[in-house]
């Protein structure tokens, strides 16, 4: 069953384009990644989905219902916006209790649990917190009611590396318990680690929508090696090799094709060092990020 269904979603801001004809589905239990350059339309898509702004065309539903018409649907949604602001003069615990009061369950245990994991001081005033700590409040606030759908907009910006790790562990746990995660980010390594499927949006349109595994399978292997002696210029110039860089003793290239053919060539020289990597999402998508023309 599709937790999120977005059909032909279009939003124009006056004459400026927001998003155009966005189509995507997110299945229950998935971790779905949503990436794209700045200004591509990620936040617009999310805000339309949540009912903060209204589409010019098309529709977006959560659990089969439109958020604006059926606000009860949001009982099962947790949202972490990219920029986190709260009411002045409130303590963390007050804000969290206020947030919890909107949901029909008692979240006290969960609040304490989450605050413990994220190392968040509940007694402090929100005004006095640093940016990263305010972000933590946002994370706890988004998760305290154990929602079935978690929507994250650049969740780890501002968190220190340890907190980032803890955050992703949290999300994995929630996912294992059955929550669906919709996740927009610039940090491709995160997306790579967490997501089952990825959509790439640029200039308001979805350019690519794929399973992570497919993306990686259809792709190249990065090979880097250092030899004992100088490597001849044309030595690795076989079919399937591209982006070849030979500098003295080292060679760097990308290979797609029958792995045995390249292995035979590598085995024939005396090596001091070798590394073979799966390409990361950055390499796959970096060319997408670049402007056309």
């Amino acid at each position: 069953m599709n937790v999120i269904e977005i059909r032909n979603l279009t939003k124009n801001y006056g004459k400026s384009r927001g998003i155009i004809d966005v189509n995507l589905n997110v299945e229950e239990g998935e971790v779905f990644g949503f990436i794209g350059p700045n200004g591509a339309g990620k936040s617009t898509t999310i805000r339309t989905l949540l009912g903060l702004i209204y589409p010019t065309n098309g529709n977006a539903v959560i659990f089969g219902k439109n958020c604006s018409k059926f606000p009860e649907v949001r009982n099962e949604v947790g949202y972490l916006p990219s920029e986190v602001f709260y009411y002045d003069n409130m303590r963390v615990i007050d804000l969290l209790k206020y947030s919890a009061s909107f949901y029909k369950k008692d979240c006290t245990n969960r609040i304490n649990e989450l605050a413990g994991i994220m190392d968040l001081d509940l007694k402090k005033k929100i005004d006095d917190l640093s940016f990263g700590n305010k972000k933590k409040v946002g994370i706890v606030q988004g998760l305290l009611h154990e929602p079935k759908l978690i929507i994250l907009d650049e969740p780890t910006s501002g968190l220190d590396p340890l907190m980032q790790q803890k955050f992703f562990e949290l999300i994995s746990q929630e996912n294992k318990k059955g929550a669906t995660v919709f996740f927009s980010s610039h940090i491709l390594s995160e997306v790579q680690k967490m997501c089952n499927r990825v959509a790439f949006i640029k200039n308001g349109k979805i350019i690519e929508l794929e399973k992570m595994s497919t993306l990686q399978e259809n792709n190249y292997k990065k090979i880097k090696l250092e030899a004992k002696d100088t490597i001849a210029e044309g030595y690795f110039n076989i079919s399937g090799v591209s982006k070849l860089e030979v500098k003295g003793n080292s060679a760097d290239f990308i290979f797609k094709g029958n792995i045995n053919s390249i292995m035979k060539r590598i085995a024939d020289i005396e090596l001091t060092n070798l590394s073979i990597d799966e390409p990361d999402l950055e390499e796959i998508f970096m060319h997408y990020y670049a402007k056309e023309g």
Partner: protein
Amino acid sequence: MNMYLHELKSLRKATIIWTCAIIALAVIYFSVYTGIAKDAADFKALLSGYPASIRAMLGISLDNITTILGFYSMIFSFITLCGAIQAMNYGTSILSKESRERTADFLLVKPVSRSAIVSSKLLAALTMLLATDVLYYAGASIVANAVKTSAYSNKLFFMISLTLLFNQLIFLAIGVVVSVIIPKLKSMLPVSLGVVFGFYILGAVIATGENDTVRFISPFKYFNLPYILNNESYETPYLIAGAIIVVVAIAASYIIYVKKDIHAVS
């Protein structure tokens, strides 16, 4: 319910300040009443030296001042001014603060409809205004009783005081609808003050004299206090006008707020 309580709490400090201010104002005015009443009474004695027509005209005015109700009706416009500023401030801030303080992403993503949000905020503002008015009425009555020179009708005192609430309702409604129509403003204070003082000055400068239609321009002129004193009732056309303004403004606010796009950082 939780939103209502939260909104009450956020209005608490301002309400305390306004309530104290309005009560203090009434107390100060009433404390000078005795002096003025005496001055007027003394002067009235001298009236016998003047022509009949002038005596008639002045006599009525002077009579008004010497009675506590007459005095009250004259100073009440300043109390109304303060109450209107309070109401207008509440009106302009309750909805726009979610956008100005950028907490919209928190509140509007909760499982509550936008109209429920508007209702909680309106009810909270209304509750606080009522609280102010009730406390004011209590305070003013006590002081009035303390300085009165002769008995006065409690009913009329109440009717005059009630116009404070009417004016506040009108300005609350105007404030809310203004805040949803004007797109992004860093501070609602200039708008809020400008509108209230604008109407006040309009009322004082233009809507004077007997011309009834001109009075519709300024809510401050909807309740003619001498009329209320003489007829023990309000003037229906103006009551209706006030009610229409409130209903239309509030309805428009609901409709606009429910339909509008809420942007991330405005």
